[in-house]
């Protein structure tokens, strides 16, 4: 294997990455990551307001990755159940980057949903959230399609997403969330 870990390190350092992970997401991992981020923000003396926003968005985006794993078909190639996420911070914003494989059929549905969220302004998002909360169906895990609406509301930003087609069956879905301070 030809990997220069120093290059990785430098790249992450330049991009102000505080924490990164690639692999299988478990409930225990999420608990640890959230605890690590909470104490990091504590040490950085962040305001309660930004701490809560970042924490909330981390919970939603990381739990999305966790629940997504249940949806992978058994036929998925080995490795397609692993995900990547990175958390970064520069002078004026926190960033959360996530990436995972997704079936092309599901990618189309997700894209439509994300485009709808991005077409709404603040007040419309609030209404849409209430509508989905009140009428939306709930999956057996409790995820009810509210996560992305919540991320858009709490970050106050349009969702920055991309689907990279990998083959006839899969795409790689990436999401960059920017949380201004």
């Amino acid at each position, binding site marked *: 294997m030809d990997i220069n870990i120093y290059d990785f390190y430098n790249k992450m350092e330049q991009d102000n990455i505080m924490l990164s992970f690639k692999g299988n997401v478990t*409930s225990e991992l*999420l*608990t640890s990551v*959230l*605890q690590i981020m909470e104490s990091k923000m504590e040490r950085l003396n962040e*305001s*309660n*307001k930004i701490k*809560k*926003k970042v*924490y*909330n968005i981390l*919970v*939603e985006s990381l*739990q999305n990755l*966790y*629940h997504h794993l249940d949806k992978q078909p058994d036929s998925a190639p080995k490795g397609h159940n692993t995900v990547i996420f990175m958390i970064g911070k520069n002078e004026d914003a926190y960033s959360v980057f996530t990436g995972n494989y997704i079936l092309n059929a599901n990618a189309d549905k997700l894209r439509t949903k994300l485009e709808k969220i991005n077409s709404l302004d603040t007040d419309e998002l*609030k209404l849409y*959230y*209430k509508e989905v*909360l*009140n009428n*939306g169906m*709930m999956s*057996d*895990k*409790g*995820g*009810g399609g*509210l*996560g992305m*609406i*919540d991320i858009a509301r*709490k970050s106050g930003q349009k969702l920055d997403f991309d689907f990279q087609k990998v083959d006839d069956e899969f795409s790689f879905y990436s999401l960059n969330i920017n949380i201004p301070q």
Partner: protein
Amino acid sequence: MENLVIEGTPKTPTIKFNPEDGKLLIQGRSIPENSIEFYKPLVDSLESYASSPKEITNVDIVLEYFNTSSSKCILDVFKKLEKINSDSDGVTINWHYEEDDEDMLEAGEDYQAIINIPFKMVELEE
């Protein structure tokens, strides 16, 4: 009816429901991956309580964080209470939020708009 007491964890809130006093408290963080399972005992307790509720039912929600999966379960809890309130008119929900936490205040207002129960917004000083 028996008291329901669930101790809090880093991912789940403390729940205290005393049907004799008509008092319910949900306090802490609610960010479990599987919130339906977590809230089921409370939803079931409220279901039984609804058959003979106290004249006054006082609900205190003191949440620091909750995830969207919990938000649906909290709505289920409120819908049970709404049913009780439509019969007896004695339910109040006290929604607590920290003074600079606009997101939590707004979350309370979202529920207030959906649920037909009097809400009191209670600001907590840090």
